[in-house]
C-alpha cells in the first residue's frame, strides 16, 4: 500500500474539517476522491502533502509516516494544489528548472525535455507563464508535479475550468500515469471518475461514506450512475 490513512482528523477551532477518516490506496491505481464543497477533500490532501499537520490519527506514504519522515514523504509525492498556483512572472523552462534544482535532480535539462514532451508543452516551452492559457497552465502544474517521478500523485481538481478537449488530454495523461503510480484525484465531475478511476472514495462532512471499487459500488447501491450514488450519500448537506 503506498498510502495508508488511519483515523485521521483535523480540527479548525471547534470545527471538524475531517473526522477520523481511514482509507488505503495501492500502487498502479487511480483513486477518485469525491465530496461536496467543504467536505474535507482539500484538507486531507494538504495533510498528506505535509502542508498542514493533522490534529489526530496517522498517515503514511510509501511506508513513511508523514509526521516523522516529512522530508522523505515530500520527495515521494507530486502535488497539484487547487487553483494550480504558478509563478506567473517566470518562463516555462525557468519554472521547471527551479523545480529540478529543489529536487537536486542530476540531469535537469534531460528531465525538463521529458516532462515537456509528456505534458504536451512543446509549443509553449519558451513562453512566459502569464501568457499561457488555462489549459497549458494546468499542464505545467502537472509537469511540475511529476517532475521528480514521484510514486504518489495528489491532484486537487486538476481539470476544473478546462475546455472539453483539454479535459480529455489531461485525463489521458492521468490514466497513463496511473499505470505505474498511485494517483489521488479530487473532482466534482462524475464522468471523469468513471473514465479514469478504479477506486472511489466519497467523503461527506469530514467522514468517509463510501470507499470501494467503482464497479462494486454500483452493485451495492444498485445504481447505474455514480451521480445517483453521490447524491444519495451526500444530499443531506443540501437544505
Amino acid at each position: 500500500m503506498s498510502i495508508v490513512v488511519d483515523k485521521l482528523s483535523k480540527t479548525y477551532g471547534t470545527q471538524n474539517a475531517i473526522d477520523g477518516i481511514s482509507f488505503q490506496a495501492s500502487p498502479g491505481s487511480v483513486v477518485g476522491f469525491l465530496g461536496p464543497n467543504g467536505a474535507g477533500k482539500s484538507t486531507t490532501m494538504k495533510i498528506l502533502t505535509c502542508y498542514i499537520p493533522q490534529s489526530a490519527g496517522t498517515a503514511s506514504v510509501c511506508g513513511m509516516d508523514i509526521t516523522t519522515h516529512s522530508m522523505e514523504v515530500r520527495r515521494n509525492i507530486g502535488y497539484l494544489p487547487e487553483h494550480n498556483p504558478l509563478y506567473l512572472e517566470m518562463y516555462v523552462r525557468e519554472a521547471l528548472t527551479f523545480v529540478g534544482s529543489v529536487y537536486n535532480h542530476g540531469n535537469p535539462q534531460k528531465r525538463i525535455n521529458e516532462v515537456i514532451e509528456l505534458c504536451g508543452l512543446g509549443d509553449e516551452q519558451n513562453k512566459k507563464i502569464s501568457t499561457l492559457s488555462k489549459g497549458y497552465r494546468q499542464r505545467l502544474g502537472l509537469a511540475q508535479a511529476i517532475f521528480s517521478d514521484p510514486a504518489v500523485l495528489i491532484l486537487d481538481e486538476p481539470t476544473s475550468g478546462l475546455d472539453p478537449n483539454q479535459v480529455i488530454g489531461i485525463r489521458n495523461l492521468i490514466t497513463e500515469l496511473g499505470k505505474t503510480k498511485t494517483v489521488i484525484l479530487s473532482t466534482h465531475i462524475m464522468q471523469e471518475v468513471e473514465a479514469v478511476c478504479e477506486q472511489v472514495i466519497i467523503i461527506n462532512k469530514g467522514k468517509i461514506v463510501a470507499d470501494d471499487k467503482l464497479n462494486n459500488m454500483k452493485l451495492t447501491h444498485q445504481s447505474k450512475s455514480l451521480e445517483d450514488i453521490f447524491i444519495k450519500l451526500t444530499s443531506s448537506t443540501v437544505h
Partner: protein
Amino acid sequence: MSFFKIDLVKLYRVLSILNKEIIGFFSSLAAYISMAVFLLVTGLFLWVFPDSSILDYGYAGLDSFFIVVPYLFMFLIPAITMRSLAEEQKDGTFELLATRPLSDWQIVLGKFLASLLIVILTLVPTLIYYISVYQLGITKGNIDTGAVIGSYLGLILLGGVFTSIGLFTSSLGKNQIIAFTLSVFLCFLSFSAFDSISTLIIFQNFENSISALGINQHYQSVSRGVLDSRDFIYFLSFAGLFLLFTKTVLGARKW
C-alpha cells in the same frame, strides 16, 4: 564526510530559492524603478543639493552619503522585501513551495539572502562616488579609505537587519502594502527611536544604554572604521531574531 555532503545538498536548496527570488525580482519593473530612484536620490544629495553636496561642503569625504543612505534604506529595503512572502501567500504558490522537500528555514534563508544580495547590488554603482571623490581631491586620493570601507560594511550590516525586518512583515499576510508600511515603521523605529527616547529627561541616567539598543549607534561605530565585535554581534543577533520571527510565523500554519 557524509555529514558534509548532506549539508551541501541543504545549501544547494537555499541557493535554488535564492536564484528563483532573483529571477522573480528582476522580472518586475518595480525592481528597476526602486533601484534607479535610490541611485538618483543619493546622487542628488551628494552632488547637487547644496546642504549636503560635496562640491559646496569642500571636503573630500562621503559623510553626507553615509548619513542619508540609512534613511533611504528604510524605504528601499521594504520595497524589495514586501513581495517576497506576501505574494507567495496571496498567489498560493507558498503551498507549492512548502510541500516540496524544503524546510521552512531553507525557504526563509533563501529569501533573506536573495533580498540582501539585491540590496548589495544596489550599492555597487555607488562605488563611482568613491572613485570620483578619490580622483577629484586637490591631493589625489586624499580620502579616508578606511572609513569608507567601514561605512560600506556598516551599510551591508544595516541592510541585513532591515531585510530581516522586511521579510518578517512580509510573512504576516497577503497584503504587500501592509507589509511595506509596517516594515518602514519598524525600520525607522529600530534605527533612530532609541536615540530619541534616550534624550528624555527621565532616562538621563541611562542615556548610553538606551541608545545602545538602537541601530544608529552601532552603525555610527562601524562607520568610523572601528570593527568592534560587539557591533557585529548586535547586527547578527538582530537580523537572526527577525528571521526566527519570520520562520515562526510561517510555521504558524502548523498550529
